[in-house]
């Protein structure tokens, strides 16, 4: 019973919905309720299975879809690298700080996560706008004379993603770096390695698992991100999360929206499985 109740709940509200999406992605759109053709129908007393590939064909022939997939992958990859570049030194500094300071610093990292994600993204509109805080400050200082177009650019999306997902990068990195044995670095120094070399040869390889975990935690949700690109991003190039939502709500094309969902999953299946393997290993190590 302990296992049965949650399993039943998730079967009904997680797995079956998924199968429905998969099923509808092989239908064709029609003007009816529901707005798609049935897969199985009865004709002359025999069941007839009709699989339509039109939704998928549409996705791979229309340049808009292909470019939005590539764009989403690019945005997610660049943001993940930026997140790593910002997060790694921070995690390192926390792991090397006084034991008494560490919980305080970690709390400072996690605290913004507890406040509304939507409002934190919204805050960047006020900072990045043409007459926003950053442009006003730069003009006041005389660095620029005309406001820079910061909002509705790729740059704004990168900032938004790095800002929102930074804790997810820092926490696994910190958990990894904190366990490192300082004597290894001392040994490297004793053997004549300079700090940079010791870092590259000793610390970096040891923290590889943390880097992978943190990067996946940023990359996976970033690919399907909807709120950040909608509020901060370009209007001429949308990401796939937005494509799915628009197909469903604006075009009312359920089969294409479902096919978009299936293709997003196919893109993410390798990173998701990698992540789950890492998680399992960590749980086993905790035992």
């Amino acid at each position, binding site marked *: 019973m302990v296992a049965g109740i949650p399993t039943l709940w998730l079967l009904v509200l997680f797995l079956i919905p998924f199968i429905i999406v998969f099923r509808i992605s092989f239908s064709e759109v029609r003007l009816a309720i529901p707005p798609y053709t049935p897969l199985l129908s009865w004709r002359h007393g025999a069941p007839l299975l009709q699989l339509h590939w039109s939704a998928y064909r549409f996705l791979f022939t229309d340049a808009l879809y292909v470019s939005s997939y590539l764009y989403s992958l690019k945005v997610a990859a660049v943001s993940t690298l930026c997140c790593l570049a910002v997060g790694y030194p921070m995690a390192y500094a926390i792991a090397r700080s006084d034991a008494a300071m560490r919980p305080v610093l970690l709390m400072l990292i996690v605290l913004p996560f507890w406040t509304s994600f939507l409002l934190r993204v919204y805050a960047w509109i006020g900072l990045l706008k043409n007459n926003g805080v950053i442009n006003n400050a730069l003009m006041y200082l005389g660095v620029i004379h005309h406001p820079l177009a910061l909002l509705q650019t790729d740059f704004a999306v990168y900032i938004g993603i790095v800002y929102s997902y930074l804790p997810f990068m820092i926490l696994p990195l910190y958990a990894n770096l904190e366990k490192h044995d300082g004597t290894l670095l001392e040994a490297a120094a004793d053997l004549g390695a300079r700090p940079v070399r010791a870092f590259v040869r000793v610390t970096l390889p040891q923290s590889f698992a943390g880097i992978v975990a943190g990067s996946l935690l940023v990359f996976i949700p970033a690919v399907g991100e909807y709120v950040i690109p909608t509020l901060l991003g370009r209007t001429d190039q949308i990401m796939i999360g937005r494509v799915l939502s628009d197909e469903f709500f604006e075009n009312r094309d359920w089969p294409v929206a479902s096919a978009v969902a299936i293709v997003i999953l196919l893109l993410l299946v390798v990173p998701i499985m990698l992540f789950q393997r890492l998680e399992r290993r960590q*749980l086993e190590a905790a035992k």
Partner: protein
Amino acid sequence: MKARGLFTRSALILGLVFLYLPIVSMMVFSFNNSRLVTVWDAAHSPTLKWYVALLSNEQILRAAWLSIRIALISASAAVVLGTLAGMALARLGAFRGRMLLAGMTAAPIVMPEVITGLSLLLLFVATEQLIGWPKGVGAVTITLAHITFCMAYVTVVVQSRLAGFDEALEEAAMDLGARPAGVFFRITLPLILPAIASGWLLAFTLSWDDLVITQFVAGPGSSTLPMVIFSKVRFGVTPDVNALATIMVLLVATGIAISTVWMRARQRRRARDLQLAAAANL
């Protein structure tokens, strides 16, 4: 060594500035008189007028009240389901369907929200056709959706807490004749209570904050607070949203401060008890 310490330390400080600058700027401009949000009107500021506007905005208040009710119910139900799932995964060993349950509790965490939202809505549409329930989407379907993605997080928190302490305590109670329910309520539950509490808080926050999944399973007349905020800010910055953000940040900061003090006191009490026990043994 010194130089690197300096580099990582300044990176940490700059990173923290990066994390807090937007929040602080929002809080400052919530007291700004100008409608232009980011232009400080020094002559007439600070002012509380956006707070007044916020508290008399019926649409926002109604949405906030709906969000609170949904988050309370979702978090509580998610804690029950998530604790059961966490117990099953951490304690039942290799039962039939273990792989299925483990996969289904881990997947919602990494699933893109648009997909979860779409699939849940399509489920509700399908069940309405098949069994006539639910009659349209609204608060009930939002709550069901929130319970589902929140319970995954609770499961992870409870499961890792259970993996962290020894099964021998439960076995000892069993050996002394306690029945399974007794073992759970007298031994296991008190031990995992901190995990359950933080799981509930996490679930509450996630439900309170969710926009994307909610948009799919919400209907007319069931706009949650994030939905109202999103439709307001989508077309620009509005000062009363700054006031709302400030209130929410202050509430969260107070909550976190209280829970930190409480946890510290608990830890100190436990350390003292351990010392007393050690002294008594001498």
